[in-house]
């Protein structure tokens, strides 16, 4: 790791661009009308490219209409506008006229209907950035996070009461912050965090602000906008709305175009490339490539629209957030253990539909949360090559490369969706690799991993689903076995750390008794049934599913061999 190291007291860092009005997202918001027009134009072009005759376009629009009417009846949400039904009925009647009348006699063409739908969608999706709301949030959020991360009320936190730490001692941030700051002033940054909790987006937004970066834009679930206060801030702080229910071609294309145009206009963005929160508790292995592809697309367009030297560059920054515990763990792992078919249904539920639920959620977080850690991976170009302080790309052999060349064939820039989709896959693989290498192993995860793997060994031959349903009273392991295994794992993790394969939290250097104690205290702080228990010289659990969930965080490193 290079660059300057920041001390906890250095935060928040000064903004790299002092004048908020000069932030890319402010300028984008100020030029909202043109931005919207551009998104519409681009989406329309893409759709017309794909459905390149009036007949094909008409068929596709019929499909959109059908899907939307299904959504209206089967999955209505509070966040839906009141005139939603009316709008789609209007589209339907225009469609009928289009189909029944002769082409030239029709009052509407396919394109007119497409325009109308595009206008409807973009008005819903678009976010804005209001400096005043930003200042207000800045005044509130540190308090909020300060409360979360320093001593908070609650009897289980008594032990920490004498040890009030500052915010940034509580959240160790690792990564080349200086480089990220420098490149954010030179080009456009796309932060791609892991996704374990609904807290992630707030956490990442706040963190990036602490790093002195201009506000980022990101897609937030439309359902979150039905919550008054959240809606107020999100819609004014650059979040755009994404409706997971709308899976039709026009809508999906528009979300992509929205992101592409925002990136072209230099808006730093956050993508959660895992799509939804990790259900199993494992680090993301496979990424959703849709939004990620817009980074590749925007980079290509920048090369096309500017001279070589001037073309704005897009930099990808993986971000790994590690919580000792995840509030939604119980629900997530239950989803995971159910049939995947059923799980799909659950995904679309409306978890935080009321302010009450949200307040309860935040309260729990404030009163229960302990330290977490955040690490940033390597800064990469859109092909996943490493980027140096100056923003130049180097391939895996250390050869300096011109990223523009990836889009060139026989000396000229060429459009090729299939090629770019493959590039996006390559980028995705590099991000996943970073997630593993820059993952910080916390004490709680290590202890959970060890205990669950020991159980797996003890009950060899029992399949996972049976194992997690074993009555917890029957679960018991000699404490010394756990310690012995952790000793071996600690050694292995040290080797892996030296090879750059993983990061470890400082507590892992403690003696193993203290590691187990620290891990147990942190993970048991929140859950009503403790994932880890110790009585006498026996370790056990009160919840095997939770134990399995936290264990999964260290899945994929081949550590089970050393148990």
């Amino acid at each position, binding site marked *: 790791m290079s660059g300057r190291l920041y001390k906890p007291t250095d935060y928040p860092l000064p903004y790299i661009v002092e004048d908020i009005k000069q932030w890319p997202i402010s300028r984008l918001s100020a030029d909202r009308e043109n931005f919207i027009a551009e998104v519409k134009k681009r989406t329309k072009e893409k759709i017309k490219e794909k459905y390149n005759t009036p007949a094909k376009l008409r068929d596709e629009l019929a499909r959109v209409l059908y899907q939307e009417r299904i959504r209206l009846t089967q999955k209505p949400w509070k966040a839906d506008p009141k005139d939603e039904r009316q709008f789609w009925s209007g589209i339907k009647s225009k469609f009928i006229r289009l189909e029944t009348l002769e082409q030239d006699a029709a009052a509407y063409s396919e394109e007119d209907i497409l325009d109308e739908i595009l206008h409807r969608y973009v008005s819903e999706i678009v976010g804005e950035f209001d400096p005043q709301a930003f200042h207000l949030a800045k005044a509130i959020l540190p308090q909020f996070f300060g409360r979360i991360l320093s001593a908070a009320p609650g009897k289980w936190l008594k032990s920490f009461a004498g040890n009030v730490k500052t915010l940034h001692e509580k959240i160790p941030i690792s990564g080349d912050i200086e480089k990220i700051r420098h490149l954010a002033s030179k080009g456009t940054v796309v932060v791609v965090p892991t996704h374990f909790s609904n807290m992630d987006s707030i956490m990442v937004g706040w963190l990036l602000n602490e790093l002195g970066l201009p506000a980022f834009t990101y897609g937030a679930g439309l359902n979150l906008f039905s919550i008054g206060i959240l809606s107020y801030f999100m819609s004014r702080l650059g979040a755009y709305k994404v409706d997971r229910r709308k899976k039709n071609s026009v809508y999906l294309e528009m979300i992509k175009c929205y992101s592409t145009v925002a990136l072209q206009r230099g808006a730093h963005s956050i993508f959660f490339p895992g799509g939804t929160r990790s259900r199993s508790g494992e680090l993301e292995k496979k990424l959703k490539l849709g939004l990620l592809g817009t980074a590749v697309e925007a980079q290509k367009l920048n090369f096309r629209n500017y001279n070589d030297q001037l073309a704005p560059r897009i930099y990808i920054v993986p971000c790994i957030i590690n919580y000792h515990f995840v509030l939604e763990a119980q629900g997530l792992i239950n989803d995971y253990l159910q049939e995947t078919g059923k799980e799909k249904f659950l995904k679309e539920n409306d978890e935080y539909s009321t302010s009450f639920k949200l307040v309860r959620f935040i309260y729990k977080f404030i009163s229960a949360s302990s330290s977490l850690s955040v690490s940033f991976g390597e800064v990469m170009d859109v092909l996943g090559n490493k980027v140096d302080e100056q923003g130049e790309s180097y391939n895996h052999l250390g*050869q300096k*490369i011109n990223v523009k060349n*990836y889009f060139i064939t026989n000396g000229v820039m060429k459009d090729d969706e299939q090629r770019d989709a493959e590039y996006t896959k390559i980028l995705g693989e590099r991000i996943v690799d970073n997630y593993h290498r820059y993952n910080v192993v916390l004490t709680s995860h290590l202890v959970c991993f060890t205990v669950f793997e020991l159980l797996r060994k003890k009950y060899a031959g029992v399949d996972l689903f049976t194992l997690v349903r074993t009555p917890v009273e029957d679960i018991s392991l000699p404490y010394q076995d756990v310690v012995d295994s952790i000793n071996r794992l600690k050694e292995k993790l040290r080797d892996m750390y030296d090879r750059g394969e993983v990061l470890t939290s400082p507590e892992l250097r403690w003696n193993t008794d203290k590691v187990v104690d620290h891990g147990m205290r942190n993970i048991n702080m929140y859950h009503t049934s403790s994932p880890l228990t110790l009585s006498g010289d026996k370790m056990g659990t009160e919840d095997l599913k939770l134990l399995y969930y936290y264990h999964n965080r260290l899945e994929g490193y081949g550590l089970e061999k050393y148990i």
Partner: protein
Amino acid sequence: MNEKKTVGVIGAGSFGSAIAGLLAENQNVLLYERNKETAERIRTERRIRQFDLHENIEVAESLQQIAEQCYLLFPVVPSQHFKSMIIDFSPYLRPDHIMIHAVKGLHCEFDVETAEADKIRLKDIKTMSELILQETGIVRVGSLAGPNLALEIMEKQPAATVIASRFDEVINEGIAALRSDRLQVYGNRDILGIELAGVFKNYVAIAAGAISGLGYGENAKALLITRGMAEMIYIGKALGADKRAFLGMAGIGDLIATCSSPKSRNFTVGFRIAKGEKLEDILTSLGEVAEGVRTLKIGKLIVEHVGTNAPLLQIIHRVMFEGLEMDRAIKLLMRTYVTADADYLDL
């Protein structure tokens, strides 16, 4: 040379020359030969063996010259030399180069002669496309394979080939460069499958030569080809490849060609073994590389490492390197337990 674009061919062996000849019908070709004397001779005589050099082919001065003048590159060098070639080439290569190799062999990061099956790591065995990705900054990589006996191509007989790549663009560039009235070019996105099909057909070809050498007829050969392909599919499966590639031009297509033709080097090796010649003597007199001999050694390590059943490979290996008598080998093979016909379709 005229105004047409120029593509590069690296390696002026028999197949490299054949590829260069095909490419020269559609564009200019820069041909690279590592051996300076040979390169100079080709340049002055404008002949490779008994064949005249196409007027559109120029002999390159250096790999650097090829990298600078061509974006489309066809390396055709034996697999043992591929790594050193690609390392020499690497400093000149950029992400806008497209590379389609035509090498039917594997690279090993360990010494094949002394390696033990349980100690090797599969990731140390690499296809040529993996080697290109590892050693260069090129991303757009493809592989060319199929029933393409060099001699027949040089004689301008009709043929077909397949280009595999995860990039449609690479396939299309390859097709545009190679397609002619005498060559059909198919595309396939499963590059691993195509590469492995091209590699493993080599040892089946050795077996086919041996069968001919023993004087057996077409029934035996049909049995060999059909079950040889099944075995290839099983080995490919163990290495993560899909069966489909093996059922196409680079699998069954190439098998039929190499297993029927005395023009194939691998076939010749098997044929002469069956006639009682010693392997070293055959290899010395052939002059050129028979990839199948190496494939056998690597293949044996692979099947033992992953625990796949590959009786044909294992028995041919014993004949070639462990002194098993040919007629005894045939008896052993005929006694192997057989399963359902076309079982591999269910894979």
